[in-house]
């Protein structure tokens, strides 16, 4: 598996809203700006739909860092921004309980032409992952189920 050697070991998941971060990522692409290929961007309609258990599960499965790129106060959905912030804060608590460094999860407002902030976020996350390494795996399932009900 030669690819495994060349790609940074850690995997970064980016949830990017269609009204914000996803367009920002596209704008970075249109400018042909290089960034590490270990980031996987999933378009999301809203960032507010993901419960804490989703993030915990993703870390459990092999994701090492997650950046939620939402539209912040520019969100077209009423209450999305507040709710997302609340969920992320809840998740931080659960991450600490599970010995997951909360810095592995970041919430960032990225607008449709926010190319530099977009790249900054990716660079910061990669710098962090270089420092702290992959996320610890092998959490007991019970903890995840517990997180599910706590959300």
């Amino acid at each position: 598996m030669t690819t495994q050697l060349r790609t940074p070991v850690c995997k970064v998941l980016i949830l990017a809203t269609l009204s914000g971060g996803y367009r920002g990522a596209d704008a970075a692409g249109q400018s042909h700006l290089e960034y590490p290929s270990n980031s996987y961007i999933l378009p999301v309609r809203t960032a507010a739909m993901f419960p804490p258990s989703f993030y915990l599960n993703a870390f459990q499965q092999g994701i090492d860092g997650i950046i939620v790129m939402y539209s912040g106060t520019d969100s077209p959905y009423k209450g999305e921004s507040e709710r997302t912030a609340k969920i992320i804060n809840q998740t931080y608590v659960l991450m600490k309980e599970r010995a997951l460094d909360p810095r592995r999860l970041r919430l960032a407002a990225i607008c449709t032409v926010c190319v530099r902030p977009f790249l900054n976020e990716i660079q910061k996350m990669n710098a962090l992952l270089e420092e702290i390494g992959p996320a610890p795996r092998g959490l007991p399932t019970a903890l995840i189920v517990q997180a599910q009900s706590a959300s």
Partner: protein
Amino acid sequence: MPDPTAESQTAAAGKINASSPAGAPRIGVYVCECGGNIGETVRCEQVANALGKLANVTIARHYQFMCSDPGQKLITDDITEKGVNRVVVGACSLFLHEQTFRKTVERAGLNPYLYYHIGLREQDSWVHHECPADATAKAIRMMSAGIAKARLMQPLAPVHLDADQRVLVIGGGVAGLRAALSIARRGLPVTLIEKSHFLGGHVAQWEHLFPTDEDAAALLEGLIEEVIAESKITIYTGAEVVSTKGYVGNFDIRIRVQPRGVAKDFAAVDQAIAACPVQVPDEFNFGLTQRKAIYQPYVGCYPASPVIDREHCTRCNECLRVGQNGGIRLDEPPVEIDLKVGAVVVATGFRPYEPFAGEMGYGEFPEVITLPQLERLLATNDRLEWNARPVRRLAMIHCVGSRQIEGMHAPQPDGKVNDYCSRVCCTATLSAANRIHTRFPNVTIYDVYQDIRTYGRGHEDYYVRACKNGVTFLRHLPEEIPEVIRSEKGAEYPLLVKVKDRLTWGEEIELPVDLVVLSVGIMPSPISDLVDMLKIAPGNDRFLLEVHPKLRPVETAVAGVVLAGTAQGPMTVQESCAAAEAAATKVAVLLSRGKVELEPYVAQVDPERCQGVGECVCVCPQEGAIHLETRIENGKMLRRAVVTAANCNGCGVCVSVCPSRAIDVQGWRLDGFEAMVEAITAETPALEGVA
């Protein structure tokens, strides 16, 4: 040329697929090379080969230009010939071509929501140009995530709701009239209700309109005539909303219509009014004059027949004695009418700011009046007199009840100050000043202001003219509020206006005057009951709030309820009419097809999983989108969440809190995202050999 037979077959297939599940996944996967844009970095053939080995993948191809006609034909052929029932394309950004490919699969008879798009260009080849192997490996993972999502995709159909085409317009002022007229001319029936017994709103009270210098009465008369002539408009005056139910396209609204108490053909109008012994301040003249309990506000009003003011009528029956039996009925009950409408236009207008007692001498000295009162004074008198004395010197003070500063101005009963600019008062004040100068050239006019805001087209002319007309301008700082005091006994002028004038080096100036006119601001009409019933929201300034000032400037957060005119904020007549027409357009877009089509991306509850906890109901930010229903099943009482698709905007907040994962946003299901994460992290054998 397409074969017409094939076309009709695919159309039929489209119908079946839209409503029935698509069957076991047979996924077609297409990797676009985008010329060299993707292909020079990502080894597309290798990607297609790797993906072809994944479960449920029926066919995996790579092609130079998937968006071209031959590229699209590859997809449609695979759907019709190979039974492909889910399609994943990796190409340029989804914003460029997702719609293109959705239409492609639909053309081949597949539900358009069984398509998934991966942005291989903007998010892979263009940003990992320096390492083709990494870019290729990433492409495989991105595409396999798309395939994982595709396995779980279900056909979706836009939510179609039958819509009533009738529109309710609330408010018979210039905005309501304009909105009703535009909607009716677009072909939709309108019910126009006005709370008072006469159409026209505040414009009826002005004699003159800027920036056109036209006669307000003539403008209004013309507009009302057009509205009356429009057969699609039904008008109720004395009418108010008493209850509302339903949602966009399907509102059930009950209105209550107060009787006029006077028959349309009642002839002895003048005698009846003369006979009435009651005297109350005439609101049409802002209390400058008195009127009777049976009255018409002004000559030429519509409807023309007078009305009984039930609040002040003493039931003395004097008016009944003037003859024409049955022409007047003092005991008629109100009538309630149920309306079915598809949309509501809120055009409830404004009221002038009422200064509190003692504010700049208002209510304390009779020589202090408001600008609306001055307008009535000018409209009803040939001479400029006040308290039977000619007005020789006059001071007009701007920003009374506008641009207020917290801590310096007394708050309104709700605890807030009016910190906004009322927009129209500067030009209205200067317009009045110029008219006074023209009619009474010997009157000296002082204008006390902070900033002159003659912003609109033609407004600056009023300022220039006022300067030429010899109006004396005095400018004060916001925190140095002018004072109005009583002159010493025996002084030539009854009042003194004290201003610290910044145009003359901050000198404290005292202006002796006969009359002080306060340019009062604009406040929204008191409509809190209506706001509650329609579940719309006022902003911090108490005016009704739009969704977004640029994206949806006249729409409220409640679908199907739109705003027209000064209910939304201070506006001139022109701006009110423009806003009203914009509201009419939004209504026409919504209802002209008789159906409301909504995106399928709404919340959906799995009743098997739902435990009726109601977390979703608690957090839902959309009014009326989700509620709990109780039903009896096998002798057990069950509570289940139920979504009203018309009110749901698919924000997904409910998904994040459901303890039993019973709710999802269609098309964006949580399990789809989990499957994608699994594919991204999988130690997939597909990656072997990528180097």
